[in-house]
């Protein structure tokens, strides 16, 4: 791999140190202090690796009991019976996966639409404001989204959206059953609102990295604006957009507080999306402090371990994809 690719040169600066600098660095009289300083900085940088390893070691040692007792069947069993010491994580995995996928289905088309609007169509005076606003939304704490969902979104869903869904699509069984308001569907909706800013701002970054010459070339051939976006922009940015979506997925998988407040917290696999469910992060949040015996605690930690491994893989994949597109991108002209 080319080692230089990840380095972003500062605008107006040389990407590599000049011979003058190398000379000056090597003839200093304080090389001992310098070496000590750079060593200290290195240790701090390495602490990031240490954190990852520490988390992994702590989680594995904490979940030893259930790993030994249940093995892989832990992830396929659907019993969750703390009293009799029988644990299976399937309902939680199901809840996490379904609510995340649901949120992606809602969020991705909207996020890409917003990104296209912001980069290709938006008047300049609106762009700054909207970009700032999306950034702000990405910074709102999960618990505040949850608070809003409990008092505004849930009543809205219960009164207007869910009855409509039951009426029009109730025959399929996916939208059926008692209408509590809380449940898998509500979790998917609040998750989609939460991951939208992340996906759209990254997509915007990726789309901005597509060179102008691509757009101009397609336009010069007589394409309409949409054809230009489709052929010149989206086609070139697709890998990065997939990366942005996967990053959003990673966020959705690990989202805890807002989901805990709306998903209903019932460890069952129901066919209907309106039924209450449970997710991996929320079972940890709800039951961790109540876990009375070692096996129970170990089961919860193993769920955390699974969550950790999955999100690390998902995030690494997403970063590689986004990075593949945005590296070496020209600075967008004003």
């Amino acid at each position, binding site marked *: 791999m080319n080692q230089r690719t990840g380095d972003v040169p500062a605008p*107006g600066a040389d990407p590599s140190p000049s011979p003058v600098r190398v000379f000056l660095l090597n003839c200093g009289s304080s090389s001992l202090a310098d070496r000590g300083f750079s060593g200290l900085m290195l240790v701090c940088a390495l602490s990031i690796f240490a954190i990852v390893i520490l988390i992994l070691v702590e989680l594995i040692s904490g979940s030893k009991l259930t790993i030994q007792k249940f093995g892989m069947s832990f992830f396929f069993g659907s019993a969750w019976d703390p009293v009799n010491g029988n644990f299976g994580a399937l309902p939680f995995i199901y809840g996490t996966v379904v609510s995340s996928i649901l949120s992606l289905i809602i969020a991705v088309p909207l996020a890409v639409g917003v990104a296209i609007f912001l980069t290709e169509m938006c008047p300049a005076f609106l762009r700054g404001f909207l970009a700032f606003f999306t950034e702000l939304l990405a910074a709102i704490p999960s618990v505040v989204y949850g608070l809003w969902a409990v008092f505004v979104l849930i009543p809205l869903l219960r009164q207007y959206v869910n009855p409509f869904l039951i009426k029009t699509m109730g025959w399929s069984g996916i939208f059926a059953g008692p209408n509590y308001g809380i449940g898998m569907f509500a979790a998917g909706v609040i998750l989609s609102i939460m991951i939208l800013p992340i996906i759209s701002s990254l997509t915007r970054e990726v789309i901005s990295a597509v060179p102008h010459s691509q757009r101009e070339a397609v336009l010069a051939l007589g394409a309409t604006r949409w054809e230009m976006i489709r052929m010149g922009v989206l086609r070139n940015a697709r890998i990065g957009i997939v990366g942005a979506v996967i990053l959003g997925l990673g966020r959705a998988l690990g989202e805890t507080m807002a989901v805990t407040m709306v998903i209903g917290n019932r460890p069952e696999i129901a066919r209907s999306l309106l039924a209450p469910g449970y997710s991996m992060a929320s079972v940890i949040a709800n039951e961790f402090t109540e876990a009375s015996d070692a096996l129970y605690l170990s089961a919860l930690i193993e769920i955390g371990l699974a969550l950790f491994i999955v999100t*690390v893989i998902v995030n690494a994949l997403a970063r590689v994809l986004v990075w593949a597109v945005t590296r070496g991108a020209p600075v967008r002209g004003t």
Partner: protein
Amino acid sequence: MASNIVMPPLRARASNRLWRVFVNHLATTAAVGSTILVMAPLIAIFGYLIYKGASSLNLAFFTQIPKPVGEAGGGMANSILGSAILLAIASLMGVPIGIAGGIYIAEFGRNKRLANMVRFTADVLNGVPSIVMGIAVYTLIVVPQKHFSALAGGVALGIMMIPTITRTTEEMLLMVPLNVREAALGLGVPNWRSVLSITLRTASPGVITGCMLAFARVAGETAPLLFTAFGNQFWSTSVNEPIAALPLQIFVYAISPYDEWHRLAWGGALVLIVLIVVSVALVRYVAGRGVLKGAS
């Protein structure tokens, strides 16, 4: 790159042209529509938060501790203090380590594979769910100590600050021109001194706002505190005892059945949001204005 372009089918038939113009308009409408559709709930969240939050903020909110269920009044003063203590511990841990990590990547590790790996790991670590940090710190600190504590909560938040600060520090340092460093070295300043008093100092507005952003992010974190700081209904300033925190208290109050507690939850949420909006706005202001006043 260039080979990726697909030639648009350029057929000159009138009907085809009409169709293309129609699709173009349709796509434009869809993009504008999705922007409106996205902005609407988001503006609604803000509006509702300000409306509900502002009406529940008063002096008692900032000076009193929660009253027992059923009694009106009371505030979240102990949660605000608790959050401040937790964030102080987190910053003490996260800020120096984070900045040092950023200095390493930008100043010593340029073009090295190790620095790229650190950068990549920091990005990945940023995406790890905060509740996982909570579990790790629980087994690391709470289990040996045998009780929940403010220290554990602070460490959990501090760990979450490190990758964010490392990345922003690195980005800000990279914006400092190399000439500035060479000028310092040319005057005989040792390299470590040049990094600390010239480069870092030049980039300091950016680095500070980066820290504030990380600070604001963890200020709203609830999940890692659930089983580290745990929460507390009373005044507590000891780092060895469970401590109240604003986001934790919002969570507890939001899922409670009492109107009075809901009111407090909205007030707490507004306080959090104001903190976050201010720091995000500051970051944008500094980044937009150019970090490097006086450098060039």
